[in-house]
């Protein structure tokens, strides 16, 4: 194909240069920062050491990491539990209606993140709609304070990332050869066992993709904890934010960022492994001599 676009590298060059200059170099820069320390008057003291990474392990910060991980994991788990039946229901809908259902399931994902998060402030605050509704239903106690709780943060995360999880699970489920389900029934398995032994194992790559995505975006998130957690629920994202914009300790913030990126790379490698396994399976399923 070399003659129909003779210089593929030349075509890619502007984008590559842009990404190297404004993504790779800045990331390398904060990687470097992570090994220095904060100067006395802010700024950076160029004194190479591993102190910042040791600080990440400090119980105070390790605790925040663990709590973030727990919240992110819960959000990912809940998102999968809600998205799976939805994605499954879409694959069972008539073929002509599936693209429309999918489009509307994913549409909210492309609208403003802040606004979607804000919607939950409107719903959950003490004078909010949920409390109003409860009163209308005959609840006369103190208004519930649902906002600024861990539950609110998790709800916000699940709400924001659910569309992507539906999409990821749908795309593996829809690639599943329907004859596999029929084969399982034909061999004597009822609908439940067919689901557990055939459908579910073969859709795990989509579940992994969706779960990894929610986890990565949740653990690094600072908008949702800031708005729905009311600052009381500090997560890693807020910690990084604070180091750069208030504590003025860039090297430590950089170290936290590096830990996030490392975590992300490990998880993406896990997900790539799942996808590779699944693509081998899809190839195997479509018999062609």
């Amino acid at each position, binding site marked *: *194909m070399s003659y*129909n*676009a003779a210089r*593929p*590298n030349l*075509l*890619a060059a*502007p*984008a590559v240069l*842009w*990404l190297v200059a*404004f*993504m790779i170099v*800045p*990331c390398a*820069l*904060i990687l470097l*920062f992570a090994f220095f320390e904060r100067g006395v008057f802010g700024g950076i003291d160029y004194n190479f050491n591993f102190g910042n990474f040791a600080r990440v392990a400090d119980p105070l910060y390790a605790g925040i990491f663990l709590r973030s991980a727990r919240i992110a994991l819960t959000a990912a788990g809940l998102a999968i539990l*809600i*998205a799976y*039946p*939805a994605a*499954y*229901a879409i694959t*069972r*809908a*008539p073929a002509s209606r599936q693209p429309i259902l999918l*489009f509307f*399931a994913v*549409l909210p994902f*492309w*609208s*403003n*993140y*802040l*606004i*979607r998060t*804000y*919607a939950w*402030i*409107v*719903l959950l605050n003490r*004078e*909010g*709609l949920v409390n*109003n509704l409860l009163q209308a239903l005959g609840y006369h106690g103190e208004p519930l304070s649902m906002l600024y709780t861990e539950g609110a943060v998790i709800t916000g995360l699940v*709400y924001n990332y*659910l*569309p992507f999880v539906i999409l990821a699970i749908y795309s593996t489920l829809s690639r599943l050869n329907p004859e596999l389900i029929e084969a399982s029934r034909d061999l004597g398995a009822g609908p439940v066992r067919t689901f557990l032994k055939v459908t579910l194992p073969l859709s795990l790559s989509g579940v992994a993709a969706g779960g990894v995505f929610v986890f990565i975006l949740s653990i*690094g*998130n600072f*908008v949702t904890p800031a*708005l729905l957690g009311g600052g009381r629920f500090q997560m890693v994202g807020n910690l*990084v934010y604070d180091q*750069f914009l208030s504590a003025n300790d*860039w090297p430590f913030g*950089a170290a936290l*960022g590096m830990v996030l990126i490392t975590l*992300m790379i490990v998880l*993406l490698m896990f997900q790539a492994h799942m996808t590779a396994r699944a693509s081998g399976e899809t190839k195997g399923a479509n018999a062609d001599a």
Partner: protein
Amino acid sequence: MRKSTLPGRLVLTAVFAFLYLPVAVLVLLSFNESGLPTTWTGFSTKWYGALLGNEKILGAALNTLIVAVAATLISTVLGTLFALGMEARARKSGTLEALAFAPMVIPDIVLAVALLSFFSKLNVKLGLHTIIVSHVIFDLAFVCSVVRARLKNFDYSIVEASRDLGASGWTTFWRITFPSIMPAVIAGGLLAFTLSVDEFIISFFTAGAGHGSTTLPMQIYSMIRFGITPEVNALATLIMGVSATALLLSQWLNREQRL
């Protein structure tokens, strides 16, 4: 020959309600005369009127438009060329694949602090231009992925046929290749535009101090941190309307004349 089953319908109804009700409530409240979530006092568009009188919001809207248009133009060109270059390679390059994928998955907060560190180390004055440069990073990655998806279905034999019939590489690109990928290029551009309009974290870190380069999401963030204001409801409704329109358009363009 499948039929929607009752449990399937129930699940979808519940999930769609979960996805759309919170947003629907916002839209409804934006037309509430009292502006309060507690009581409905009648239909009114006065909060939309209030937006027009709010100079901060209008300024932020203008900034957003400048950023989104500039970032979209640059990223559409770069992203399309990137896609063409990657698909034209005889062998896939793992490094290039990773480079094209990274902006879509890197946590915003990390990219944001990295860019802030980078610009301040180089003593670059922060402002709309630094926001634009930063937005191009993720915008071009999305444009590239949309255009590549189109190129995957592209029948390269028509390029060969064009060359065989005597057209040069340049003519072939403009007469054959570009018309076939144009819907994807525009769709990618619209997607980039939406992403730029909505982007908050990276803008927040690369905008610098002062109000001169505040974008709409930054304005909204500072408004909603201090609670609910009826103006935000109206603004949110408008922004969602614009995003939804751009997305429907993008979807429609990319569907038409599917190969």
